[in-house]
């Protein structure tokens, strides 16, 4: 196919897209159908210029570019329409969205208007990875009964597409060993939300944020997010610059969103604090609601009975290896106890980034050389993880910051007592019973708590009883409440 052919087909596709949005921006279908592409664009531009509603500008810009425009582009089109004379307004639109149009890789893109909520499950649809956020998404989204459309980004990052069957099964029917298929994305149509909603149960990747911010600000669609945490700014010293950078840009979407459902009261507190910081720029920010995550054991089934007591007690910590999780504090606390003569085995489960694994392994090796029983396990399957929770005498999780603390409730749901931090979301969970709370920055406090649980069977039994009596949400209940929070208008 030569260039001229392609241009002709691209122009035809552009005209088809304009016909789809014409009624929504105020040009009757009957009239639109009779116009050639140039006059058609002009008619739509005139209609949008007359109303100067941001959602119409966004819609026209999206139809012309075949991708979602950025904030700068919508602003440029708005200004162009304001200043251009009648007869050349189409040019203003074309000029304004040229950059996004040039980033759309496919030449012939059709569009589909969608008024049902679009659910962005991009990462879960394209990655087999399954921790934290992915667990939440895969346990929640498939349980939504309200009408919605699952969506992933096109490879060029310019707009949403429907999921392919294999992408959909990766979201709704994930299983251990599932694999993502590379280069598996619908070519078309581009999904264009109109008077609908965008739901973001994941934290979007940096490259999509500029377009999402523009959707949140201009498109008139309701935008709902799950607020997981503000770790990248609050504990910035424990994450990479890039992660903080992405989070700050993510706030461009947050501040123009309608509702943020936070996974703990603590996280809700963080987002409310952010809202008060947004006031300096004349922005109120989203409604912030709290909906703590469910309490379910790994694998979904509560242990009928706990494993038989073992000769050497097992102290277990589960969580990715990173400074924030405070594995070094647990290692140090354990060494304090071993030097006092305590007998127990310490086990860490979790992967992490290479640089910290190397450093952590060195520390662990040094302790092991002293003759103390400590091990690190990575790449553990869900069933082995569930077995480890059951086998543990004590579960320790004195993280420096968490949005929620999923491993804590997983341990409690298995019936294992927990030692965790005495503030934030972890203290929130601890209030429900089954936990000892300590200052995670104090190795001695962690050591003392472990010792108490090892030597005091009465305390341990009472914590186990508390854990068994906990009443948390199921995933189905969580999914239902989340849907209501997203979709019901807030006062």
């Amino acid at each position, binding site marked *: 196919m030569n*260039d001229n052919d*392609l*241009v002709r087909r*691209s*122009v035809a596709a*552009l005209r088809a897209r304009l016909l789809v949005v014409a009624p929504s921006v105020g040009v009757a279908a009957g009239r639109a159908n009779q116009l*050639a*592409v*140039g*006059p058609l*664009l*002009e008619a739509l531009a005139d209609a949008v210029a007359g109303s100067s509603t941001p959602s119409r500008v966004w819609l026209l810009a999206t139809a012309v570019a075949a991708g979602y425009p950025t904030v*700068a582009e919508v602003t*440029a089109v708005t*200004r*162009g329409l304001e*200043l*251009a*004379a009648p*007869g*050349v307004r*189409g*040019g*203003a639109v*074309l*000029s*304004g969205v*040229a*950059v996004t*149009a*040039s*980033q759309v890789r496919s*030449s012939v893109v059709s569009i589909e208007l969608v008024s049902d909520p679009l659910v962005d499950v991009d990462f879960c649809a394209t990655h087999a990875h399954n921790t934290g956020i992915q667990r939440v998404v895969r346990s929640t989204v498939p349980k939504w009964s309200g009408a919605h459309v699952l969506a992933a980004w096109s490879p060029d990052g310019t707009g949403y597409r429907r999921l392919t069957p294999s992408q959909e099964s990766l979201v709704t029917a994930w299983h251990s060993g599932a694999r993502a298929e590379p280069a598996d994305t619908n070519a078309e149509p581009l999904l264009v939300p109109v008077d609908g909603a965008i739901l973001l149960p994941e934290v979007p990747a940096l*490259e999509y944020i*500029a377009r999402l911010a523009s959707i949140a600000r201009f498109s008139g669609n309701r935008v709902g997010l799950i607020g997981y945490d503000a770790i990248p700014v609050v504990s910035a010293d424990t994450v990479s610059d890039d992660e903080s950078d992405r989070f700050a840009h993510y706030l461009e979407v947050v501040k123009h969103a309608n509702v943020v459902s936070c996974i703990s009261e603590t996280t809700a507190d963080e987002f409310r604090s952010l809202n008060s910081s947004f006031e300096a720029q004349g922005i109120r920010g989203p409604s912030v609601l709290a909906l703590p995550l469910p309490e379910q054991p790994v694998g979904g089934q509560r242990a009928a009975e706990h494993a038989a007591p073992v000769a050497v007690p097992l102290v277990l910590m589960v969580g990715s290896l990173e400074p924030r999780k405070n594995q070094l504090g647990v290692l140090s606390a354990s060494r304090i106890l071993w030097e006092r003569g305590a007998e127990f085995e310490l086990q860490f489960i979790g992967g992490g980034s290479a640089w910290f694994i190397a450093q952590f392994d060195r520390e662990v090796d040094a302790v092991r050389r002293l003759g103390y029983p400590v091990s690190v396990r990575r790449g553990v399957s869900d069933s082995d993880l569930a077995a480890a929770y059951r086998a543990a005498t004590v579960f320790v999780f004195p993280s420096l910051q968490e949005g929620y603390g999923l491993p804590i409730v997983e341990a409690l749901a298995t019936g294992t007592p927990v030692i965790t931090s005495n503030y934030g979301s972890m203290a929130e969970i601890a209030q429900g019973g089954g936990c000892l709370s300590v200052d995670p920055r104090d190795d001695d406090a962690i050591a003392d708590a472990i010792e108490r649980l090892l030597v005091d069977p009465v305390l341990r039994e009472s914590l186990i009883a508390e854990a068994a009596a906990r009443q948390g949400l199921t995933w189905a209940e969580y999914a239902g409440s989340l849907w209501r929070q997203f979709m019901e208008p807030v006062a």
Partner: protein
Amino acid sequence: MSPQISAIPDFDKAVDAREALAALQSQRVEEWVALVRFGDVIPLSVENSLSWKLTRPVRLAQTAVKVLRRDGITRFWATVRARLRRLVGRS
């Protein structure tokens, strides 16, 4: 004589005759499509994601492609030679 604020200045010449206008409008759409498909629009995000040091070679490459497409290979080499001569300070 009102100035048009636009990224691509050629698209906003005022025209009167209705028929000619309609034809011209469609022609502009075609030109625009050709431009964004095969043309010289430098995505700002590309520029932003690269530090300015990296942007220069990218710009250079884009300019080179532009000249090649517009003027053909012979003219292209002539331009490169002229630039190099200017760079080393001769002629």
